[in-house]
């Protein structure tokens, strides 16, 4: 299936390669570099490239391209999903997945890749099993290894592959038994010039950090499970139980994992937590434009809107912007024309605003495009959909675990305000 893997950095250098079958020459990546040159943006490189003898399937994460070489028919998503799993594993092991981190831990990287694929077919991709086979690096272990020349391969023989529950190893022990769940929701909305919502949807995830002894069997129930329109589970969740009772019943993996991703049904009206008042005008013939932006909270149930970050791509004709923020700081990049305004926390008594003028290129005509405004924000202690966990129970073990649930709302890819004019109809 997967023949080889090349890791390519932003400047187009191959800094790591791994072959599972025979060695494929580096020159195969030339086709990839060609495509990279043709693409205007890094993310515009086609994920699947066909070359005379091979196919290249790539993903871009953390400004590194992971390029897999394929020789025959295989579902492209199979490869893409696997490559993302590789990145997730690296992140899990090294904290970050950067070129430097990979180069520093090159031995572990090779060991991981060797275990994750056998003859090009995925073998062990569960982080729990991998961690039993190959110990994550620590400073002490790295030093000892450098001196003694030993490797990170586990001394003890792993049993995970044979455990009844493949995602959990046996014999887990903790002195403090804890289970934490983070309910994180993202709003993804497009709002038009007049402030009416074009689309708005809420996606959420429940990330868990479970450190429990033995083989605990957990059930998690919601006050309002009907909110959840579409869900996808970690393989540990018993699907039948969810279908029948809308209860999450599972034997958790050890450590951090994503229990559930969900989508809140679109019938429910999505409350947008902020509003934007804007006035951005360019006058024909004048080399000045006005910029006026005010933010305000809306439907936040008394919770503070924090970490607000506004960004806007101004038209190409804009030379510079001379603005005055009531709070926070702003930057304008005259090359990319990107305006960013780090607002911080919104104070409902004193609404943050950004006002001033933009200077236009002399003689240039009035810009056609209207800028879009992207807003990022965070609200602690609230899931905007109103989802509430009812209770968390544990069976199968005798001790009383410490349980914690945290809610958070974030703005997703784009809470954006498209400013446009109607063209026709």
């Amino acid at each position, binding site marked *: 299936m997967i023949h080889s893997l090349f890791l390519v950095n932003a400047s187009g250098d191959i800094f790591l390669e791994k072959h599972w079958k025979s060695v494929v020459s580096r020159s195969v990546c030339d086709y990839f570099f060609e495509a990279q040159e043709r693409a205007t*943006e890094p993310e515009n490189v086609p994920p699947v490239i066909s070359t005379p003898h091979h196919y290249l399937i*790539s993903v871009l994460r953390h400004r590194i391209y992971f390029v897999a070489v394929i020789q025959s028919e295989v*579902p492209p998503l199979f490869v*893409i999903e696997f490559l993302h799993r590789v990145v997730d594993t690296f992140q899990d092991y090294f904290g970050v997945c950067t070129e430097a981190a990979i180069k520093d831990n090159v031995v572990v990287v090779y060991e991981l890749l060797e275990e994750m694929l056998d003859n090009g077919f995925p073998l062990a991709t569960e982080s729990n099993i991998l961690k039993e086979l190959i110990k994550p690096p620590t400073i002490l272990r790295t030093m000892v290894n450098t001196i003694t020349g030993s490797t990170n391969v586990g001394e003890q023989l792993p049993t995970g592959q*044979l455990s009844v529950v493949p995602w959990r190893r046996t014999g887990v022990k903790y002195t403090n038994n804890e289970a934490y769940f983070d309910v994180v929701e993202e709003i993804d909305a497009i709002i038009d010039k007049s402030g009416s919502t074009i689309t708005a949807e809420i996606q959420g995830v429940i990330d868990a950090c479970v450190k429990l002894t033995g083989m605990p069997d957990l059930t998690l129930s919601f006050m309002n499970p009907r909110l959840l329109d579409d869900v996808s589970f970690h393989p540990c969740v018993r699907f039948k139980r969810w279908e029948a009772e809308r209860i999450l019943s599972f034997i958790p993996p050890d450590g951090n994992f994503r229990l559930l991703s969900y989508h809140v049904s679109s019938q429910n009206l999505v409350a947008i937590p902020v509003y934007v008042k804007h006035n951005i005008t360019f006058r024909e013939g004048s080399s000045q434009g006005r910029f006026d932006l005010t933010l305000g909270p809306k439907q936040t149930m008394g919770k503070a809107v924090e970490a607000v970050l506004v960004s806007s791509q101004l038209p190409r004709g804009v030379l510079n912007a001379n603005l005055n923020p009531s709070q926070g700081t702003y930057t304008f990049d005259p090359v990319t024309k990107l305006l960013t305004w780090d607002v911080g926390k919104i104070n409902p008594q004193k609404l943050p605003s950004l006002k001033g003028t933009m200077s236009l290129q002399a003689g240039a005509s009035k810009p056609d495009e*209207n800028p879009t405004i992207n807003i990022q924000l965070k609200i602690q202690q609230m899931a905007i959909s109103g989802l509430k966990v009812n209770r968390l129970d544990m069976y199968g073990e005798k001790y009383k675990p410490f349980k914690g649930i945290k809610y958070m709302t974030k703005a997703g890819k784009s809470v*954006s305000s498209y400013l*446009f004019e109607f063209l026709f109809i």
Partner: protein
Amino acid sequence: MSASSAFNDEKGGSSSVGEPEYGHDPASGGIFSSDYKRHDDLKEMLDSNKDALKLEAMKRIVAMIARGKNASDLFPAVVKNVACKNIEDPNQLIRASALRVLSSIRVTIIVPIMMLAIKEAASDMSPYVRKTAAHAIPKLYSLDPEQKDQLIEVIEKLLADKTTLVAGSVVMAFEEVCPERIDLIHKNYRKLCNLLIDVEEWGQVVIINMLTRYARTQFLNPNINESLLEEGGGGDKTFYCSDEDEDEDEEKEKQAEVSALAKRKPYVMDPDHRLLLRNTKPLLQSRNAAVVMAVAQLYFHLAPKAEVGVIAKALVRLLRSHSEVQFVVLQNVATMTIKRRGMFEPYLKSFYIRSTDPTQIKILKLEVLTNLANETNISTILREFQTYIKSMDKDFVAATIQAIGRCATNIGEVRDTCLNGLVQLLSNRDELVVAESVVVIKKLLQMQPEKHSDIIKHMAKLTDNIQVPMARASILWLIGEYCEHVPKIAPDVLRKMAKSFTNEEDIVKLQIINLAAKLYLTNSKQTKLLTQYVLNLAKYDQNYDIRDRARFIRQLIVPTEKSGALSKYAKKLFLALKPAPVLESPFKDRDHFQLGSLSHLLNAKAGGYQELPDWPESAPDPSVRNVEVPEWTKCSSREKRKEKKVEKPFYSDSEGESGPTESADSEPDTGSGSESVSVSVESGSPSDSEESEESSESDEDEEEEEKEKKKKKKEIKQMQASERLVSRSKPDVSFQTIAPSSALKNYELLHRITGEGLSVEYCFSRQAFSPDANMVAVQMHFTNNATSDTKNLHIEDVKLQSGMRVKEFAEIELLPAGEATTAVMGVDFCDSTQAANFQLCTHTRKFFVSIQPPVGELMRPVFLTENEFKKEQSQLMGMNEISENLTLDAKCRNEHAIVQRVTTAANLSRVPCGSDKECRFAGKTVTSGSLVLATVATKDEGAAQLTVNCEKMVIGTMLVKDLLLALTQ
């Protein structure tokens, strides 16, 4: 070492050179080559008797091989260790690792050893080793394709494996080595369907893709009736016309008959087809995008139209994943929206474009939106498109304008609106936008030019400003083509063009020549000189195409003495009515590739792509999927290992759903009954073969233990035999009194629709079957719902597993319309849950039916005192005891309820007991009379422990499963 020193001694002896020779000896040459030394310690590690060291050495070697380093000098050491020692190692991980190393050595001499090792490992006790064997198969195949036949044998063997760990890997090997041998799948089809949910993610993808192909060869098209309706007209025609050729006519008649027959016969989905659809559906909730896509393509290719819709939501969910995932999913959605637009319409807004999307995603979303456009949503879509035109991403803007053009051609109602909008874009400041609009407008105008002469005039004016060659060429073509609509402007445009001719791009020059030719033919008075001027300029152009074109046109349109016959037709040639271009989706007809595949994405066949076959005309024999003979009775020496591991499904059994060790078929599946109208209750479960598997495992214990056990078994058997005698001599009244008074569960044997009015239900009456004490009594309840009488109801053609017997009920001679009657038949199930298949015959029809007993009905109650119970229980410990912890259902926390539920689920009797924390039940199997003991010990807060002791392990396991279900729900 001893071998090498002996070698040296010999050498030294013969040549008597002595010292210097030793320097070259690899075994001692540490000073010169560190490589040799390192390999030496690897050799030492391989020879050590510590597991961890061996494993470490093996891993290093694999890593070396993977990095393309030459490890060939380690070859003998590895083979010696691996093939001879480690493959026999008691630790399963060492065995697996050894095989992995061995199979990674790409040297042809090793082929026979590898083959042997794979064969050995394929029948290993440990599923992990068997999985490794499956992984090794493609490796050996790529090394030596001539081993194919032998490897297929191994694949066949591994396909029969019942563990989830092996399933994915062996199907992978199957796909690499022999994807054409679809016949190997038949017997394993149901098992694979049932295992699927517990297989690891990557295996799921491979299995689902393979089963999609399988289903296309084995089942009928569920949408056949619709496609017949579409083609119906054509069939009738052939029936009536042409009576020249007798033979041909006959054939056609036959065909017509066949199709008519198919039309009349309602489509009934094969239960196996349903099984596949049902078991894959939950996987739409997988976190793995590849699994979701695999299920989606399965539904798209296999499901009835009405059911395909379920995949839309899951696919839309994937759009929130990484952009690479979005890219692939959108490609597939684009193909799906052409055939099944309806299912994505509710999710229209999910395809709206975000300013942060990469261009390639934007363009794909645009494609989907265009495919989804129809009369009702077009205005929203167009409004959305307007905002896109304002985008700063010019490639995307161009694509949007083209999309507007396609909407306009597809939906007549909005054509004028779109055209107006596009015309307004002509005054856009961005030249690219204008150019793209011109090209699209040109295509739209070709559909109805007469109405739009003012637009053509408007465009004529644009030639002064617009510089994009493609747009200029389009305008010129339009003016030439419709010069009658703009008789005054056209010559003027030509005049201007003639002036700038030399500075134009080639495509523009060609269109200038075209325009000149057309004007010359329609309005030669005004344009004769201009045309000649243009043609003269073209004559000396640098581009040979343009020179050629000029020569050709001059000959054609300017009449000379020499000009041929063609010039008469010049006007017809140039001003013929041209068909309007069709604006089609590039994704049209891409669905002949299996969706989700690489070939589909590239729209070209990739190497190793397996075609998705067309549905068969008539379904192949469905009985090939019935599993009959247990093949696991024979087992090799490998299985004698002591490593005993009860492979439990992770979740399946606690949920009472099909588990890896047991097929869902072995339980009466009420869900399937309501969903699929099928005559036979799903039959042919592999549980029988599994029984033999487990019993073989249990037989393979240490010899001494074995003997002791056999002794005990004999004793018990004797005891039971005597008991049986007793129970035979006595009337069976006692059993009847024991049977619980609770309502007996009814099962459907024949639905009244399939039975054409006759419906039959059956229940296990729990009465002794007087003609034969070894049989289970099955009470059948016949109801005649039809308007006519049914006569001669009887049983025929009984198909049974070896050892099973049936005592038929006496023929029912007459069952008048609207009446009902009952009859009792006896079945000796041989203590297995195998179905008894037979035909139920009336005077007119025969129906294939089957009876499948729940495990609880394979036993009858016995009276034991508490002491007797304890004594028997102590004899049935170890392997024969199965315990499970459970949480009792809230309604089932008192003694009465527990007794009620247990006795309903299984035909057992209560054993009197002193403690109120324990309920005990006893029974014995009907055929062999093996004791079945069940204990439910209750603890605090609804916790309880269920223990079943039974000599027959399969019965025990299944009973535990059923009782767990009964007590927890």
